[in-house]
């Protein structure tokens, strides 16, 4: 087991109702338990606002955790592994994460210097090697970020993440801003790196078709909770949770023509519905305004159904 996330919670302070009252809590992540094996890709999908990015950030301590534990390999002390650089994160917009006044070669060598990965005289060699790894010409290391196209910038982002020999990379919507023709190049690159170096990914994306191509397992997040988790082909061929079913039917029917829909009112994490967060939109629990009682009052647990497949639903 590479990464083990247990009952992770991240609450943000929300609006105050009165001047001196306690602020309400926005439960961005509300008790998430996931694990990632070595060399595995876990796809994390959900609508916007479901907490996908917050979960990624909470794992690398970019946002403070309210509760729960994250353990990485056999490190017990969280501070030690979070400084080791063994978990890296790549974001959607690489231009925003690169310093515009620094050549890309320098940007990467900074990482090498900070973590003392290679002796000083070998830094440039290593930077060039990293460029080759992501299929960029090593001659480009003296260029500035603005001189690259979107796809090339994302490659630089990947090269920088690779600089510290990570074992897990959290990819937060890394291909969402790219054109389809370039998107496929980046996915292929990520897959090849996984085969070559055994890197595990937590692949966060709203695009189910992309996740399908790269993930071994998929976790579906709704309003800060995992509603279903399981092997990619199983989830795609037979989604069990009504939310997963709806999500995938919209995605696949965009390939065939007609569309069936659930209501689009996404639950508000500041004031989530009681019981199962999904019940107001759920086609099973909602019988024209009358809800099944268990769904509307009791939190469903994430139960194992068969061979690693977990679903949080009373009706299955």
């Amino acid at each position: 087991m590479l990464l083990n996330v247990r009952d992770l919670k991240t609450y943000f302070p929300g609006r105050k109702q009165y001047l001196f009252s306690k602020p309400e809590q926005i439960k961005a992540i509300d008790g998430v338990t996931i694990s990632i094996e070595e060399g595995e890709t876990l796809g994390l999908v959900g609508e916007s606002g479901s907490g996908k990015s917050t979960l990624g950030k909470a794992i690398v301590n970019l946002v403070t955790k309210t509760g729960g534990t994250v353990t990485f390999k056999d490190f017990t002390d969280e501070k030690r592994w979070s400084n080791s650089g063994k978990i890296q994160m790549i974001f959607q917009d690489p231009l925003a994460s690169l310093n515009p006044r620094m050549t890309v070669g320098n940007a990467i060598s900074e990482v090498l210097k900070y973590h003392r990965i290679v002796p000083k005289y070998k830094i440039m060699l290593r930077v060039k090697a990293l460029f080759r790894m992501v299929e960029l010409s090593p001659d480009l290391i003296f260029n500035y970020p603005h001189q690259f196209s979107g796809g090339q910038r994302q490659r630089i982002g990947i090269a920088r993440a690779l600089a510290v020999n990570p074992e897990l990379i959290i990819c937060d919507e890394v291909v969402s801003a790219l054109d389809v023709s370039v998107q496929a190049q980046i996915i292929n690159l990520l897959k090849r790196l996984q085969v070559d170096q055994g890197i595990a990914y937590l692949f966060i994306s709203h695009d189910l078709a992309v996740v399908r191509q790269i993930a071994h397992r998929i976790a579906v997040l709704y309003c800060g909770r995992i509603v279903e988790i399981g092997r990619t082909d199983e989830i795609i061929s037979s989604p069990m949770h009504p939310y997963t079913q709806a999500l995938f039917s919209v995605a696949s029917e965009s390939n065939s023509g007609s569309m069936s829909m659930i209501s689009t009112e996404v639950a508000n994490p500041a004031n989530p519905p009681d019981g199962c967060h999904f019940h107001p939109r759920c086609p099973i629990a909602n019988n024209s305004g009358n809800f099944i009682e268990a769904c509307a009052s009791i939190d469903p647990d994430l139960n194992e159904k068969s061979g690693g497949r977990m679903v949080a639903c009373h009706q299955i």
Partner: protein
Amino acid sequence: MKQIILLQVSGLKTHIITNGKSLPIVDDVSFDMNKGETVGLVGESGCGKSMTALSLIGLQKPAKIIGGKVIFNGTDLVSLDKKSIREYRGKKIAMIFQEPMTSLNPVMSCGKQILEAVKMQGELNGAHAKQRVIELLNLVKYPDPKMGYKSYPHELSGGMRQRVMIAMALAGKPDLLIADEPTTALDVTVQAEIVNLLKKIQQQLGMAILFITHDIGLIKQVSDKIMVMYAGQIIEEGPTEIILKSPLHPYTKALLACLPRIDEKMEILPSIPGNVPTPDNYPSGCRFHPRCSIAVEGCSVDEPEFVEVSDSRKVRCPYVHHSVA
């Protein structure tokens, strides 16, 4: 059914002038649109699809239209001055954009903003105009129009904001709606709703829609005809189903092949090598030749013509013609 031509664009050229160089953003674009028809304009970012749309209604600034005609209902919009084009823009031709939040005024209630658009038409006033706003909100299936009238943009979800934008665009009962990536910023579930809504409204009002998107999967559900753009030029045009089933141009073929599919997993995704060229260094000859799988020596020299290969189907590549029966 007889088709009445609504919009005729011929040889449209829009250039941006920087550092004394004139860069072709839209290069010789020609197409026709019939009344009530939906035409999809697809292409990757930077290919000039948005600039084409903006040029139609005179919003291309700081770029300049240096040639071509945009004939809408018999009038050439390019030749009109600032004042007279406003008779069309926002009235007969309306436009909605990708990110509704940037197009809406954050300190004005949604109802007031739609009211402004209604009053702009110069037909209704006072209570009648207000009534019309409620009608429009009903038309775009806003759940509670009276509440919607009072709410501010930040209080709404992305889908609701886009509905407000659509309501505003419909205020002038347009003959042509230009929808520039209207669903790109939305979740898949919401996206489906907005697309269905646009289709329904189109049937009710009989307007034509120019649907601009980078998402080929989406275009299938909306448009009768598609045009594929690459590097400022339209490279393939034809009925949607036929193009998606049997694309002719190597770019269209490659683009369709590299769409990730949800129903099958591929070990290595097909991709197009290289990057989309920028206007300041378009390759000579065919602009796609450096990335093309069937390019021959002549491709880097001769600029391919946009030729009709079969009924209502045009392609900009001389090497695919013989493959059409």
